[in-house]
């Protein structure tokens, strides 16, 4: 019997012993995240079949809900845990050779804390505990954005911090308001007490949560920090930020909206917000010359797409949205990792510096191409089933509004295609200008392995989406059936 608590305790504990290992040997440090996340991956995969049958509940310290803190490993929680562990594990391999600065141990500590925070957010069943883990996630990501310590990264980190701190203040205020009214912090207990969001006293906390989590989830107009932060962080961190952090923010937001408040009336608004986020993200990305900024804006667009699909709030919609989430996590991490190594080699983030990379780094360029095709939604890669499911979910509603919105979304997909294809052309069909370093450089194995594994997942799930659709369907029903969630936590 494996306990979901281990998923949080082990990485958290290991994070703080990194410096002690550093005393023994500086070389061991970088393997600590690797070990911790490998452990997490195994544990979460072991939990997987059990969770699908019935959610696993753990009461910390023996207090039964609604007292005390409890962990709820439902299908959606375990889905996120697996994703976090998987991407975190692969990125920790990537970091072996990528992170060479002096302060390695700080990187590894913060990295583990970031992933611990993310895992905690998705597993906890207590709103204040969620806030605490959320803060762990945020604070470690502020400092990781500043990791390089140069002009741009410090600037981005400061801006990220100001907006993020404001966002978390709003969340805390929302928690205070809810506690003041209901005297409980347990999400299931709160959900049982909230019948409608119509009254201002309930609506204000909801809006505070949406705004607060929206900052981390990068919903327009709360997303101004994202392009700066994602583009100036180390690429391994950009991959995690883009692939995990904003998705966790989105998770917190939909968890609050669906489970805590059951706020179906605000969903139409969120849906429109999603489409606006998508369009603005893609339009901004279309004009970027800096590759990492382009990818960052593309993440904004993808978050908008997910928000749209999740806000449809039908089984199809949530399944599609979560599928898109998985595909974005895999695809965007791959893109950041592949682009990161090419940037590392060429020394510039400009798209024109990628010219001729197809010849210089064939494997990395190929992986980048596959990731780009997948994000655009071309078969046989993972992005296509996601796109198909979202279109299906939107048309299933049989309303004019949805049909119109889906055309806007598809227009955004075309714009997205335009800038990704441009990079692909730069990789393969433009000759490098300075011809001195034309020789092939195969990336070291620690770079190639994570890239290949992600590529493999993208292709395999793209061809055989059934691998994940089952868990997505039960996740969707967990989100939609609020009463079941309440009953399962507090029988």
């Amino acid at each position, binding site marked *: 019997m494996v306990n979901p608590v281990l998923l949080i305790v082990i990485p958290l504990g290991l994070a703080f012993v990194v410096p002690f290992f550093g005393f023994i040997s500086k070389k061991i440090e970088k393997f600590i995240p690797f070990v911790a996340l490998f452990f997490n991956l195994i544990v979460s995969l072991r939990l997987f079949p059990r969770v699908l049958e019935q959610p696993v509940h753990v009461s910390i310290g023996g207090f039964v809900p609604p007292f005390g803190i409890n962990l709820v490993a439902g299908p959606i929680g375990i889905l996120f845990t697996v994703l976090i562990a998987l991407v975190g594990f692969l990125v920790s391999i990537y970091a072996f050779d990528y992170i060479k600065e002096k302060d390695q141990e700080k990187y590894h500590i913060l990295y583990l804390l970031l992933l611990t925070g993310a895992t905690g957010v998705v597993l906890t069943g207590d709103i204040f505990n969620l806030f605490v883990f959320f803060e762990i996630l945020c604070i470690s990501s502020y400092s990781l954005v500043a990791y390089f310590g140069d002009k741009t990264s410090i600037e981005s980190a*400061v*801006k990220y911090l*100001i*907006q993020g701190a*404001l*966002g978390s203040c709003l969340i805390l205020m929302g928690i205070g308001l809810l506690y003041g009214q209901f005297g409980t912090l347990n999400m299931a207990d709160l959900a049982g007490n909230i019948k409608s*969001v*119509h009254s*201002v006293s309930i*609506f*204000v906390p909801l*809006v505070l949560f*949406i*705004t607060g989590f*929206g*900052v981390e989830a990068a919903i327009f*107009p*709360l997303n*101004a920090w994202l*392009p700066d932060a994602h583009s100036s962080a180390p690429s391994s961190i950009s991959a995690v930020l883009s692939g995990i952090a904003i998705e966790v923010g989105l998770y917190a937001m939909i968890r609050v909206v669906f489970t805590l408040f059951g706020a179906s*009336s*605000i969903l139409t*608004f969120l849906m429109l917000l999603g489409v606006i986020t998508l369009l*603005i993200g893609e*339009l*901004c990305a*279309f*004009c970027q010359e800096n590759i990492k900024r382009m990818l960052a804006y593309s993440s904004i667009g993808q978050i908008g797409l997910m928000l749209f699909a999740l806000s449809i709030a039908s089984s199809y919609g949530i399944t599609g949205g979560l599928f898109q989430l998985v595909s974005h996590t895999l695809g965007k991490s791959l893109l950041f990792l592949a682009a990161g190594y090419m940037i590392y080699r060429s020394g510039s983030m400009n798209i024109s510096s990628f010219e001729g990379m197809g010849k210089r780094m064939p494997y990395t360029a190929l992986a980048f191409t596959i990731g780009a*095709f997948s994000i*655009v939604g*071309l*078969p*046989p890669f993972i992005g*296509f*089933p996601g*796109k*198909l499911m979202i*279109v*299906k979910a939107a*048309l299933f509603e*049989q309303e004019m509004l949805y*049909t119109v919105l*889906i055309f806007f979304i*598809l227009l955004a*997909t*075309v*714009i997205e*295609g*335009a800038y990704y*294809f*441009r990079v*692909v*052309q730069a990789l*393969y*069909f*433009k000759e490098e200008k300075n011809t001195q370093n034309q020789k092939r450089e195969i990336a070291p194995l620690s770079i190639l392995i994570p890239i290949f594994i992600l590529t493999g997942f993208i292709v395999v799930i793209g*061809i*055989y*989406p*059934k691998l994940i659709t089952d868990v997505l369907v039960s996740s969707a029903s967990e989100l939609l059936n609020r009463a079941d969630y309440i009953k399962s936590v507090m029988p």
Partner: protein
Amino acid sequence: MNLIILLAIAFGGALITYFLGKISQKIRDIFAVFISLALAVIAACFYNVSSREIYYTGFLDFPFVLRVNTFSWFFAVTIAVIGLFSIIFSLNYIRKRGNTDFYYSMMLLVIASMIGIVLSGDLVSFYIFWEIMSWSTFLLISYNRGPAISAGMKYIIMSVTGSVVMLVGIVSLYLHYDTLVYTELSGLLNNASSGYILFIIILFFIAFGVKNAIWPLHVWLPPAHSEAPSPFSSVLSGILIKIGTYGIILLIFVIIQINVFLNLGEGILSVRYIISIIGVITILIPTFIALLQDDAKRLLAWSTIAQAGYIILGIAYGTSESVAGGMFHFFNHAIFKSLLFMVVGAVEYRTNGVRDLNSLGGLIKKMPVTFIGGLIGICGLIGVPLTNGFVSKWLIYKTLILNNSPFLAFAALLGTWGTILYSYKLIHNMFLGQLPEKYEKIKKAPFSMQLPIVILSLAIIFFGIIPGLPLHVINSIESGFGMEPLTINIWGIASDTGTINMLNIFTAVLVIGIMVWLIFKVSKKSTVIGQYDNYAAGTTVPKDKYNYSVNFYDPLCRMISPYLKDFIDDFYMSLARSIKNTGNGIRRIYTGDVGHYVIYIILFLALLIFIQINWELW
């Protein structure tokens, strides 16, 4: 033989080719030819087989079906055969270029996905193969670099736009009828409201129209076809755009059914008539734009759009004869247009990439086989009797006239007149006239280029004299669609409304030919004039001072060119620019000042609370 094995060979071959190239170039070449040959042979083996198999069910509850019947067999064989000839033609053409592994592997991937498209039996797997074809084509179009990059970009953007629109149509069909398998879907739309059918037709037509380069959606084609490597141009022009035709036939005859289609709308506003008009516009405008081109491949590219117009006209008109004409023209166009691109490609290969019609000329002596190929090719294109193009165009004209659409027929004939002009320009400026001095050392095309040229030329003549063979297949396709079959014999068509018998024409031409030959034989020997034996104002003109092929048709071109500006292209380009400007404007909201960002957050919060307090929306 299983259909899935055919597909496995096609896709596996594409993949293996890439890795074989890392071992040895020679083995890879042989392997690529072998794979495409195998595809052609296996595809041909499915003649008269009608089977259907579910091969995959793991994709989101959509069963994937492969099916073969005469309709898909006809397309599959054409694709495989043209693909084979293009691969053979590539052997020399591509040898000295970089990235040849990539080239062959993508070429095979394009062919494989096209075969996948025509063999798939449900719309989701159709769509998947369709998209694979789109991106692999995109990668190949850009292969030549330089201007090819923007050509590839234009292609993929339009293609993706088309396919996402089609995706909406496919999903809508699924949600209405709960299946996407053709056999289950066909006939279900009989009871649908005509508004819904129109909605579906428009959605699908945008996608297929982009691929098929129907008039307002054609702008990607001229740059893409002219900038792609020539063997791939012949695949693009010969078969790839015909996948759009396949889609249109599938939509009209399988999914919607012809009787429903013909009854959509009334008189001049009926869908059938509107599409026919679009077909005619697609014939007329590009034909005369082709006349203005000085780049051989660009000329052929515009000509491709025009010929696709004939196919659309024939299919959309919807009578047995016109559909037969349209489908036969598809087949013929695949042959002669890929032949012509190969001819231009051979010349381009020998002259090191010269395609400018103004600087070529007089190559007839140097490349005689290529010239003959080009001559037969343009005869087919124009529709000279005894070539296959004659029969298909005859069918289209005849049905248009018989069914009281004289204006459509006249417009189509006008298109043929334009075709004669630009075809002559093409052949004259490349092969006739004076040979520029710099090309004196030119050699004839290598064998691997001559072989496809010769075979395709023979095919044009063969199917021109014996049109009964393909017409027989087309006839059984039509009866499969529930249309009234034509009366076919091996030499042509025998029906009460009009008979065409190529044997008679052949005999007549043969007799006249013999007579002409006899007259020449009997009469006084005529003098043979050399290429440089030119006189002007009583003196010989020095070499290179006088070239007939510069500014061909100049007066005519000056007359028509103001009317033929490609304003559609300008429109798309300005659309793209305005999207870019919008993006540039919008991203100014991220001002870089964190104070503004904080204001956004607070305003967002305040706005939501304000709305709720005032209007209680939520």
